[in-house]
């Protein structure tokens, strides 16, 4: 890779970041860098143009008007000790040094690699009913996190937000053999005003809602993937146990 040919922009405001991103064509966005830099170093990624978001003013957590808003470049470490089940999901990401560098927006946008799914926080954001605000082609857009995960490729995440209300929450994850494993499988649950939401991270390339469980039934209608971390066989057998544990954790917080 001839790095010298790559144009690098370091915006100093959200507007500058959006202007530099444009319609998102041929742009490599670097937030924390914990996924992009290894790909660059190993030659798996050959950008033509890059935007470094470190100084774009997209970080920080605010509570205002009944909403919690988390800026795209807020480090994963800033979620620890905050709202559940996001706080526990964040604590399961890598080690404290990586968590201080990795960002919420980066984790949300990380596509599954051939080796592992990578969106450790996705299930927790889904059960919180989070909304993703993004920019790019067609202008600014806000949508539920599930819709963003399905259709958000090529967008620049600005922030993620959810209602600042009391919930019962639960979280259960497969133990990791090493701190740097991506989440093998994790289940997040949240109950608000009697409405239960349950989702799994690690089952497939992106987190999925477990609607049959939300309706009081067994796990059904989801498929597990095979990859370097675990087999589909293992994941499909582990999933009902993690659902039980997450729901028990949720009842404990009641």
């Amino acid at each position, binding site marked *: 890779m001839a*790095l*010298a040919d*790559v144009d*690098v922009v*370091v915006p100093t405001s959200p507007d500058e970041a959006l202007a530099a991103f444009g319609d998102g064509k041929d742009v490599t966005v*670097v937030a*924390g*860098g*914990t996924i992009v*830099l*290894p790909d*660059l*170093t*190993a030659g798996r990624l050959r*950008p033509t143009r*890059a935007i*470094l978001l*470190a*100084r774009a003013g997209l970080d920080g957590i605010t509570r205002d008007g009944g909403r919690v808003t988390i800026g795209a470049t807020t480090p994963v470490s800033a979620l620890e000790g905050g709202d559940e089940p996001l706080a526990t999901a964040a604590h399961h990401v*890598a*080690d*404290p*040094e*990586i968590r*201080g*560098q990795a960002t919420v927006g980066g984790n949300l946008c990380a596509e599954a690699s051939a080796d592992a799914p990578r969106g450790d926080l996705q299930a927790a954001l889904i059960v919180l009913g989070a909304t993703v605000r993004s920019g790019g082609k067609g202008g600014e857009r806000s949508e539920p996190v599930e819709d963003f995960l399905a259709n958000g490729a090529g967008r620049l995440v600005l922030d993620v937000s959810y209602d600042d209300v009391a919930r019962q929450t639960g979280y259960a994850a497969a133990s990791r053999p090493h*701190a*740097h494993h991506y989440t093998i499988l994790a289940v997040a649950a949240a109950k608000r005003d009697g409405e239960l939401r349950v989702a799994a991270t690690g089952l497939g390339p992106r987190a999925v809602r477990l609607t049959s469980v939300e309706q009081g039934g067994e796990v059904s209608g989801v498929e597990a993937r095979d990859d370097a971390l675990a087999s589909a066989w293992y994941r499909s057998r582990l999933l009902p146990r993690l659902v039980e544990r997450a729901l028990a954790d949720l009842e404990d917080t009641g």
Partner: protein
Amino acid sequence: MKLTVNGVEHEVESHGLQPLLSVLREELGITSPKAGCQQGGCGACTVLVDGEPRRSCLIPAGALNGAAITTVEGIGTPEHLAPVQAAFHEHYGSQCGFCTPGFLLATHALIERSPGADRAQIDEALAGHACRCTGYVKILEAVEAAVGGAK
């Protein structure tokens, strides 16, 4: 762009997407941060960025304009070792030495942040650091002595 390393300001010319690790090793000739896995997984390239332990292989140079970087050379000298360096020396916390700079800086930051940290806090702080000599028993003895001595 400007980068302060161990108190000395440098005008850096590396490309903005070069990892800090290669800026330090190749442009500035500071080789204590080790190029291990270069994928964020081993901890050997750890430096302090504005006082926080970070993987220098994961941070693009362009994001660091004006930052203050500290490597092991910046926390003590051969005549006046930092407490963590003295403890590693005393307790033989280094075997081949490749992982040592990362362990030293992570422990140094832990002592600054949480003097008297307990074993669980130590395990958490060092979770991202691998020693392929598997010298963990000696390393942890050294870390516990350094952290205990800082109480």
